[in-house]
């Protein structure tokens, strides 16, 4: 299978960046294995392939990195395309913001929205994906605001503990992959 990071950065075999990535061959192999285990898992368990791709397209839409976003948007179930695009437009903001535990760090608290899916979006996405999108928005833009009630909202929407681990990994992995692609893309442009 094509290595997704190589393909999105445009790293050709034999190029300088190919040699540099080859020095971290385990990281390269297992970043790809992380992708495969999230998006082409042996067992999808409680999070369907369409749900995984819908959450991914929301994450990459929020980051606004064109190539990575196009890759995941292309895998989005057609029925959800316009709903996800509308929520991305409404949800996109700047990060990271959020609050710290009360104390000396409170002077660094940076307020920002606790974003909610629109009424129209909720109808199109359904309660499970709506809850997942709201949690995803927090993970992407203000992860330090996370707390037990955020996880309770996912449980209330029908996700299990196992599902929440998978969804958390999916959003967090993409936060890594998107940045590696963007960073290596900049480095490649200077070589």
């Amino acid at each position, binding site marked *: 299978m094509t290595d997704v990071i190589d393909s999105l950065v445009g790293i050709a075999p034999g190029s*300088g960046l190919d040699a540099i990535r080859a020095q971290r061959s385990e990281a390269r192999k297992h970043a790809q294995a992380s992708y495969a285990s999230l998006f082409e898992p*042996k067992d999808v368990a409680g999070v369907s392939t369409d749900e995984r791709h819908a959450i991914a397209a929301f994450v990459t839409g929020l980051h606004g990195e064109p190539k990575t976003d196009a890759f995941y948007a292309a895998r989005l179930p057609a029925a959800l395309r316009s709903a996800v695009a509308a929520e991305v437009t409404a949800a996109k903001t700047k990060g990271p913001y959020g609050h710290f535990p009360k104390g000396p760090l409170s002077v660094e608290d940076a307020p920002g929205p606790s974003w909610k899916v629109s009424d129209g979006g909720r109808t199109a996405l359904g309660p499970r994906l709506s809850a997942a999108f709201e949690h995803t928005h927090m993970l992407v833009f203000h992860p330090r605001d996370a707390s037990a009630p*955020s996880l309770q909202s996912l*449980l209330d929407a029908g996700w299990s*503990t196992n599902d929440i681990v998978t969804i*958390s990994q999916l959003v967090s992995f993409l936060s*890594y992959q998107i940045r590696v692609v963007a960073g290596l893309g900049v480095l490649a442009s200077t070589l």
Partner: protein
Amino acid sequence: MSNDKTLTPPPHTEPVVFTRDMLDWLPWLEPMAEADMTEHHIKSLVDAARVKSPYFRLLARDPDVLEARTRTDKDIFYNPEAGLPRAERELAAAATSRLNGCIYCASVHARFAATYSKRVDDVQRLLDEGVGARLDERWEAIVAASVALTALPMTFGKEHVERLRAVGLDDAAIADLIGAASFFNWANRLMLSLGVPATQPK
């Protein structure tokens, strides 16, 4: 409605500053019970000793992702071949964690950065003052690049690469920095959202 529940952590003291002290981490969701873990789950921990960690037993609920995550992590940080010195990979991890606000992750990687660089005061200044702390040009360039990769929208650009080259980083070192800062955008989100740090009992 799922039958699963969030956990109420036992009485504890949450750290309210960034610190190099050893911290505990208390999960908000039930980790797997050791007795329920199959060979597949145990293998996903990579290090067998991690079976004692609630964080890794929670992530073991999706074992394939955990194993791939851990092997990615280890190569980015521990592979000694070429690239960025270990101390500065840790610096990038600590700076990313400081900006995102992950007190637990910052504590671990600030300790490593201090140990490997022997620059305890500089590392502590990063924790105390944040990512704008005065360090030296090389460390400030590394912190600034980590910040530019972490903040949204991302601002990492050619000027960051040029500044890193000017302080002596070659392309392999810059690729390591990108890997380390990006990886902590993964790790911070898991640590911050699945549980809470606690000071260790004296």
